[in-house]
């Protein structure tokens, strides 16, 4: 049986995005004849060609009249190998929220670049948002190659420029494909016009890319949706496995009760299972009578998530009314909904320059980092590690509207204290103690920096250590990575990044997740 791939596209009126999707649907027979006929008779037909493939995907009346796509539209097609779900979104800056929505469930993003125009801000914006929303696979479709006479140099120049851009924003490497969506070159069939192109066609790549999410390998997380008690003999906890694997007999911890118990049965309509994997919807039965209700989280005893009321998150604001620090909102996170206050907007990201800008509020379609405090603790992972347990939405308690989307990046200290910031507070916020670390060369320095930074660390590479490196690190709560010159540095030279992180955990520089749990628990 075929597997499933969800991907997102973004683009504006002229870059050929709708044509590309129309081409995929048309060539894979995802469009029916009568739908083609209704496109032909539609009252607005912008390009007047034989078939305007773009009209197949521009759904609503208002959009047909204006000739633009203004909302997320979902499209479906399948081949014998895979079923595809496209989250198709507009590309203009004022539709950032739609792009984020389309990317939230996608495993892969297609970034469209018009070969005539090269890399425009909107392609960069799309890649930035897709990366922010946790997409790990990128395809860069360099479209309208026919209009630059299939000039390989044009393709190569865009390839180099965009690869550098993706590296800068920390996105994974992309697959580049030169194409003409209008004529179908390199979409489904390899084009004779690009003998120099050695890659796969777009469809071939979509059919074969291994886009399994890391969710399978992540720690097991089971948010309880619904308690099933059909009679006195049965009590089960229904939910969809967010990540990882549980097996019958596994010892587990129920949060927030922190009670240990065992999984006795994994129940489904089709019979009991031995094990349950990420994304399966099942019902768990447990050995002990514990008070568990909707919104609770069942986890392995040795892989506990963060439990905290205060945390930081990247936020995409989606409402015309700006985000106001100090206001109370509903925070909905997995099957758990709590009240929360946005304590501060820490900075705003300029999506075009990719620079952090100071900001007191977030306006519609703006992206920034916020600090939140909830009335009850949430049990969560960092979004970079888990796209389900690291995500939440912000709901207006008055209008009931969905105002924003959040991706958790780290925990914060617990007490509201006035005056001087203590060393312990910095450690609690950053999740580590100050340190100076010696590594072999700049390459391993940057690898380690990225690893620590993604965990929420306050970390910087300085190369040759300044004389007062250690006191500097202590004052600012910093981890400084140096390649030479510090006498009292922790020497990790010649050790792989992964092992270096483990060493730092063992040495107590990085505070383990267990300690953070205890810290949040008393709240």
């Amino acid at each position, binding site marked *: 049986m075929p597997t499933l791939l969800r991907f997102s596209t973004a683009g504006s009126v002229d870059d050929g995005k709708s044509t590309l999707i129309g081409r995929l649907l048309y060539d894979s027979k995802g469009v029916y004849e009568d739908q083609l006929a209704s496109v032909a008779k539609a009252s607005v037909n912008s390009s007047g060609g034989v078939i305007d493939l773009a009209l197949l995907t521009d759904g609503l009346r208002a959009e047909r009249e204006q000739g633009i796509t203004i909302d997320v539209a979902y499209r479906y097609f399948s081949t014998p190998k895979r079923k595809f779900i496209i989250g198709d979104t507009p590309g203009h800056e004022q539709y950032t929220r739609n792009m984020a929505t389309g990317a939230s469930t996608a495993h892969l993003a297609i970034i469209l670049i018009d070969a005539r125009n090269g890399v425009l801000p909107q392609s960069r914006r799309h890649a930035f948002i897709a990366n922010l929303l946790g997409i790990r696979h990128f395809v860069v479709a360099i479209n309208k190659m026919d209009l630059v006479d299939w000039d390989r140099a044009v393709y190569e120049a865009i390839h180099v420029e965009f690869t550098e851009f993706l590296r800068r924003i920390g996105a994974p490497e992309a697959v580049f494909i030169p194409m003409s969506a209008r004529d179908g070159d390199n979409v489904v069939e390899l084009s004779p016009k690009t003998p120099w192109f050695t890659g796969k066609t777009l469809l071939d790549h979509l059919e074969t890319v291994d886009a399994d999410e890391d969710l399978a390998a992540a720690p097991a997380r089971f948010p309880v949706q619904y308690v099933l008690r059909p009679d006195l003999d049965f009590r089960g906890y229904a939910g969809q496995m967010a990540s990882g694997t549980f097996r019958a007999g596994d010892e587990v911890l129920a949060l927030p009760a922190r009670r240990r118990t065992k999984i006795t049965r994994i129940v489904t309509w089709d019979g009991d299972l031995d094990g349950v994997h990420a994304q399966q919807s099942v019902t768990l039965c447990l050995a002990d009578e514990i008070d568990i209700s*909707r919104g609770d989280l069942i986890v392995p005893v040795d892989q506990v998530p963060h439990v905290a009321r205060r945390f930081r998150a990247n936020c995409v604001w989606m409402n015309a009314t700006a985000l106001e620090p100090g206001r109370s909102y509903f925070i909905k996170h997995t099957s758990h909904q709590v009240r929360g206050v946005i304590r501060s907007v820490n900075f705003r990201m300029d999506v075009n320059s990719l620079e952090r800008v100071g900001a007191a509020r977030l306006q519609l379609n703006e992206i920034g980092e916020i600090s939140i405090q909830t009335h009850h603790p949430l049990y969560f992972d960092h979004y970079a590690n888990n796209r389900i347990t690291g995500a939440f939405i912000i709901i207006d308690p008055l209008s009931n509207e969905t105002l924003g989307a959040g991706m958790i990046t780290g925990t914060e200290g617990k007490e509201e204290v006035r005056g001087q910031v203590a060393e312990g507070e910095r450690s609690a916020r950053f999740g580590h103690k100050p340190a100076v670390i010696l590594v072999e060369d700049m390459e391993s320095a940057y690898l380690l920096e990225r690893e620590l930074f993604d965990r929420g660390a306050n970390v910087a590479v300085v190369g040759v250590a300044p004389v007062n490196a250690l006191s500097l690190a202590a004052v600012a709560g910093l981890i400084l990575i140096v390649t030479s010159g510090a006498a009292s540095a922790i020497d990790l030279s010649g050790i792989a990044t992964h092992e270096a992180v483990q060493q730092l955990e063992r040495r107590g520089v990085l505070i383990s997740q267990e300690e953070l749990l205890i810290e949040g628990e008393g709240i």
Partner: protein
Amino acid sequence: MDHLDLLEAESIHIIREVAAEFQNPVMLYSIGKDSSVMVRLAQKAFFPGRIPFPLLHIDTKYKFREMITFRDEFCASIDARLIVHTNQAAIDGGANPIAIGTQKCCGLLKTRALLDGLAAGGYDAAFGGARRDEEKSRAKERVYSFRDEFGQWDPKNQRPELWNVYNARVDKGQHIRVFPLSNWTELDVWQYIGRENIPIVPMYYAKPRPMVVRGGSLVSAEQEFMLLPGEKTEMVMCRMRSLGCSPCTGAIRSEADTIDKIIDEMKLVRRSERENRVIDHDQEGSMEIKKREGYF
């Protein structure tokens, strides 16, 4: 997990969310194949318990007789609570597609009846079996589709919907239409029916039936008032690709008398399933207009 496993798990998650978060949900049951799949998913979601909400059928009284027979037998066999609502006043007033036209007829017997039926039960969430691949305006509909006090949909002002986190908050009088099959295609539905052995109305299977051949389409002779002067019925090997009211639902010529043959036919077919539904084509963008007004 193959694509059907993933779709199933996602739909069950949606159904459980609604049952957990709303006071008084109801599942709209149209007797068609999509409803059959949706009901099976609800059975799975609450196993070993029973479905914790009623099924609501909006009966226009123009449904095929075979559909009503199937409905009553099926609902009894799975121990579901079935509620039937009809706009009896409109039918008594002579509403039928010939007398008042298809647009008005649908408006009274489906849209009005649905809104009245939902209001009568005080439901704050109503599951529907609609899929995004059915029709262009549905492609942008959310899984949780907000309806105001008048049951209307505002396509320009939909709530953003990210990940699998749904916003279930409504004020009194408003409700949410929920589409657990949003990401299913017609082919997925048939493959799932085949895999799970789900009972469906026999009209989906081809057999010789008395039909009127009118132009390129096959019209059921079940409602005699629909016949034009001089028209005669003849036996035609055919089946229904989607089920609606008998005056407005055509059949397709087909030899597909098993699920496997239907799936093979689906893979070859080059025409969409709503093509034979007169009401979708009565004006440009007609489904979107009906939906804004509150139609399912």
